[in-house]
């Protein structure tokens, strides 16, 4: 490969000798992903269940949360947490900005998946649970959610893939993630082509297995219904 090509061999050599830069970013991306996933799941179940509650205010909370977070760009939400909150005295570390921002954002999508899953369960199930003396939360926990899980899982797994890719917005607020380190290294050395090829492959290595798993879950579900 010629010396003038964006993918010239000496640029790859430079990248391999600086591999730690990418490893550090990759690790950070995985940690931010894992923690924000936990937050997103917690929010998803909570807000999702609120969406099928009988109390109108509870359903309103679900709608406001979901519509607000789904219909504003994640970048704006992250900028708000990072640049705006310090002006009112709240200085979250950038790591917390990432976990909170991406967790809350993905939580809205998880909530919709959970709500759809619950609504796929015949209404008779809830009525039967009530007739056995279950409360709303008891019925949800023991009767409805275990059944809804099967329906909700494939779309939720797809949201995990989105979550991982979305962590790349952290690069815009010096978040120390994989994309940040790739940008930093690429603009210092100007070897942008190998940098972004490798970065893309690293994201792929996280997301492809998950996407494959989601497809398998979907197929299993089709067989079961």
């Amino acid at each position, binding site marked *: 490969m*010629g010396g*003038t090509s*964006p993918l*010239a061999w000496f640029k790859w050599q430079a990248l391999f000798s600086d591999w730690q830069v990418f490893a550090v970013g990759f690790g950070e991306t995985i940690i931010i992903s894992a923690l924000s996933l936990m937050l997103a799941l917690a929010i998803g179940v909570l807000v999702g269940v609120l969406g099928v509650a009988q109390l109108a205010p509870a359903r309103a909370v679900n709608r406001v949360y979901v519509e607000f977070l789904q219909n504003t760009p994640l970048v704006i939400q992250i900028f708000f947490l990072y640049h705006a909150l310090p002006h009112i005295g709240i200085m979250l570390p950038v790591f917390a900005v990432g976990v909170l921002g991406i967790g809350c954002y993905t939580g809205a999508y998880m909530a919709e998946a959970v709500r759809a899953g619950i609504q796929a369960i015949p209404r008779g199930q809830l009525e039967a649970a009530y007739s056995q003396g279950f409360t709303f939360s008891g019925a949800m926990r023991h009767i409805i959610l275990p059944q809804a899980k099967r329906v909700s899982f494939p779309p939720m797994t797809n949201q995990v893939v989105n979550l991982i890719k979305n962590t790349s917005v952290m690069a815009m607020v010096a978040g120390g993630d994989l994309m940040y380190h790739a940008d930093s290294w690429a603009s*210092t050395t100007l070897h*942008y082509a190998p940098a972004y090829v490798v970065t893309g492959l690293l994201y792929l290595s996280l997301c*492809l297995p998950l996407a*494959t798993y989601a497809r398998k879950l979907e197929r299993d579900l089709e067989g079961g219904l």
Partner: protein
Amino acid sequence: MKKLYLIFLALIAACALLSGCGGAPAAKPQAPAGDPADIKAIKTRGVLKVGVKVDVPKFGYKDPKTNKIEGAEIDLAKIIAKKILGDENKVDVQGVTAKTRGPLLDTGEIDFVIATFTITEERKKTYNFTEPYFVDGVGLLVKKSSGIQGVKDLNGKIIGVAQSATSRKALQEAADKAGVKVTFLEFGTYPEIKTALDAGRINVFSVDGAILAGYVDDSTVLLAERFSPQEYGIASKKGNDALAKLAGDTIAEMKKSGELDKLFKKWGIS
């Protein structure tokens, strides 16, 4: 499942193929007499394409009132256009950032980058650079209330730099010399660094002094200290060697005649 991995493999193969083609166009036959291929291409096109800054007042700045990009570096582009095409208005400038300037040169979308592009030994391996047309030092912009007077006050401070990062290296060396520990955060654009400074995310905004001058306001102060000189050069694609020579000669002539000093004086840059 198997199909999926086949697709994946095909993608990688396509990647390799594309990169293989990247080096090929260098073998264009040269015109037997007259202009070298790279200059001829511009003459055929009838316009010189140059990447410039749009967010650095006096160097390359898009005036929101007139919507025109102006500055000393745009004037340089015009002078080169006049040399090649005989008309200083046959130049097409477009804004570039640290992230886009390299790819735009490589694809041939632009012929030159004249955009406060610092010359380094490592970068010379990737692009042709002319001799420096301007030398600037890295400066420090701090909040007045922070009480920071110079490098010695930077212990434990967070410094916001631009992703092009030559200022980062310069400042790290200065901090090591002064025996102070600093951390760096990199941002994509200058306004983002200023926003982070205003929010208190960083204590210092540090890029080239002439660039910082455009961001001084009532709450901030630009310290007098300057670090390791940053030399700006005109960059062009490797292989377009006649273009690089022409730009280099132009700068050398302008230096000799004093025209270059006059140009920067005209824009109030010293």
